[in-house]
């Protein structure tokens, strides 16, 4: 299994000044009007040692680990909107590492181990809650395949247990285990170490800690071009002018093909909308996360009390940040039958994000043909859970210009060699 050398409380620098019970009390006296800024808003310098394009969770994590682990502090994160305003703020916040293939187990469990110490590392409450992730099966075939997958996952040292319908009913009293429904609950498997975290806090926590180490975080600054000199990257053209850098890391999810085209780098990516919605808030009812492969549904309850539901990916390419209605409609129809109490809830918000789907449903963490230009993309529908691990190994790749053991299988050349990491279906959810 992957080691996590940089895991552990307060071993990494960054994230000052500390938040504590004392600062909370002190600031309460001034009605919380005088809290310090969590990060600066600097104007871009003329050049940096490295630029990260994309101020979402993965990009900010990359910048943080570049500064904290590799001591590269003369770096910048360039974001066209606001921090975490893309898929980081649009996902359903589920964290798990129960993937079947060894390469996936390595990276997702590396991420999960980092999650477990991250609130302390960043001195920022990520509201990380290991409430368990239960994936349910709706047919005998799915159940058998699930058992096979559970064995593979356990061989990689990742916790996973198969549950029968009665055990599931005990864990989730609101579930309907009547065998006559359209998607009957025939069993499931549970990763108890899985759970949720507050997605905005992840972006803010990384941004604050990276800023403290000297990283310039430049918001409202769109990259309009990637300047190449021959086979080398020279820097990025932005709406705030040209910024020079010998190393540029692109972490822009749905827009990676657009960015790649600026430097004539081609990717096997299709950008699709992925939709989610929340209900009106209710009292605590669901204290775990439930996913269904066959329906392509995820459900959990937020700390505010909203039921958070995620649907499947749309079937056609789009950059519109909205999806088509039949996709959530299909998911809700099944969800209401499996969880009858949902039928009485009203939907509060519904949104979409553009995800970068890859042919083998695994990410791309890779060098490119352009020296100094790196891509971290292709996370598709499941990138949030990997945020710390993705940033950690991508920072390592950028710092050393060679992938480490965890990142190596995710190089772009796998689409030439055929060494795909085929997580379609095997991933525990149909991508």
């Amino acid at each position, binding site marked *: 299994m992957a080691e996590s050398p940089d895991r552990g409380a307060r071993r990494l620098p960054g994230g000052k000044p500390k938040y504590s019970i004392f600062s909370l009390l002190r600031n309460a006296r001034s009605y919380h009007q005088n809290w310090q800024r969590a990060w600066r808003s600097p104007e871009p310098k003329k050049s940096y040692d490295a630029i990260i394009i994309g101020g979402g969770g993965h990009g900010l994590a990359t910048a943080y680990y570049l500064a904290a682990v590799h001591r590269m502090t003369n770096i910048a994160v360039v974001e066209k909107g606001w921090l975490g305003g893309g898929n980081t703020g649009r996902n359903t916040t589920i964290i798990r590492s129960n993937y079947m293939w060894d390469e996936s187990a390595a990276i997702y469990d590396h991420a999960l181990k980092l999650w477990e110490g991250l609130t302390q590392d960043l001195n920022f409450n990520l509201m990380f809650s290991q409430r368990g992730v239960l994936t349910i099966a709706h047919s005998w075939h799915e159940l058998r395949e699930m058992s096979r997958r559970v064995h593979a996952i356990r061989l990689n040292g990742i916790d996973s247990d198969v549950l029968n319908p009665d055990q599931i009913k005990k864990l989730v009293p609101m579930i309907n285990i009547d065998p006559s429904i359209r998607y009957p609950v025939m069993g499931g498997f549970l990763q108890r170490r899985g759970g949720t975290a507050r997605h905005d806090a992840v972006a803010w926590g990384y941004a604050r800690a990276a800023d403290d180490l000297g990283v310039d975080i430049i918001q409202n600054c769109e990259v309009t071009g990637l300047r190449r000199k021959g086979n080398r990257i020279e820097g990025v053209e932005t709406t705030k002018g040209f910024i020079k850098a010998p190393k540029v890391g692109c972490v822009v999810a749905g827009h990676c093909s657009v960015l790649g085209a600026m430097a004539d780098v081609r990717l096997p990516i299709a950008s699709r909308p992925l939709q989610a919605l929340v209900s009106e808030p209710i009292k605590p009812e669901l204290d775990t996360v439930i996913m269904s492969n066959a329906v392509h549904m995820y459900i959990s309850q937020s700390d505010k009390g909203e039921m958070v539901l995620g649907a499947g990916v749309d079937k056609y390419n789009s950059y519109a940040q909205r999806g088509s209605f039949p996709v959530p409609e299909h998911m809700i129809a099944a969800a209401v039958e499996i969880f009858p109490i949902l039928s009485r809830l009203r939907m509060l918000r519904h949104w979409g994000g553009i995800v970068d789907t890859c042919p083998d449903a695994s990410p791309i963490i890779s060098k490119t043909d352009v020296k100094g230009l790196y891509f971290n993309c292709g996370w598709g529908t499941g990138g949030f859970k990997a945020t710390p691990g993705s940033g950690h190994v991508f920072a390592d790749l950028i710092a050393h210009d060679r992938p480490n053991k965890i990142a190596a299988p995710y190089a772009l050349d796998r689409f*030439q060699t055929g060494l795909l990491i085929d997580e379609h279906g095997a991933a525990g959810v149909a991508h």
Partner: protein
Amino acid sequence: MLLIDCPHCGPRDETEFSCGGEAHIARPLAENSITDAEFAEYLFWRDNPKGVFLERWCHDAGCRRWFNAARDTVSHAFLEIYPMGSLPKTDAGKAAYAGSWRRKTASEAAAKPSSAKGGKA
């Protein structure tokens, strides 16, 4: 919900259709003489433009026939629907076809009938 104008059946709901992804990807005939990297262009590399995209659709729950479409991936508007085996005729469609990086790839060059002579049987 998109209303898609099937060339055979007329306007129908999008739930009746499936999208087959990028159109005009020709299989290299000279597959023995091109490199793995060039074959990957055909097999895995995909055009993914923000704007006009040429793609294939199938009217699954209707006539079950395939057709091509030029669609804007930002507005979702269908700009042109044209038969399989033909090229787009509108200006937007023509520009999208000519502007695609795929036109310059080795895998597309190897898909031309004349290139087949280069391949070994």
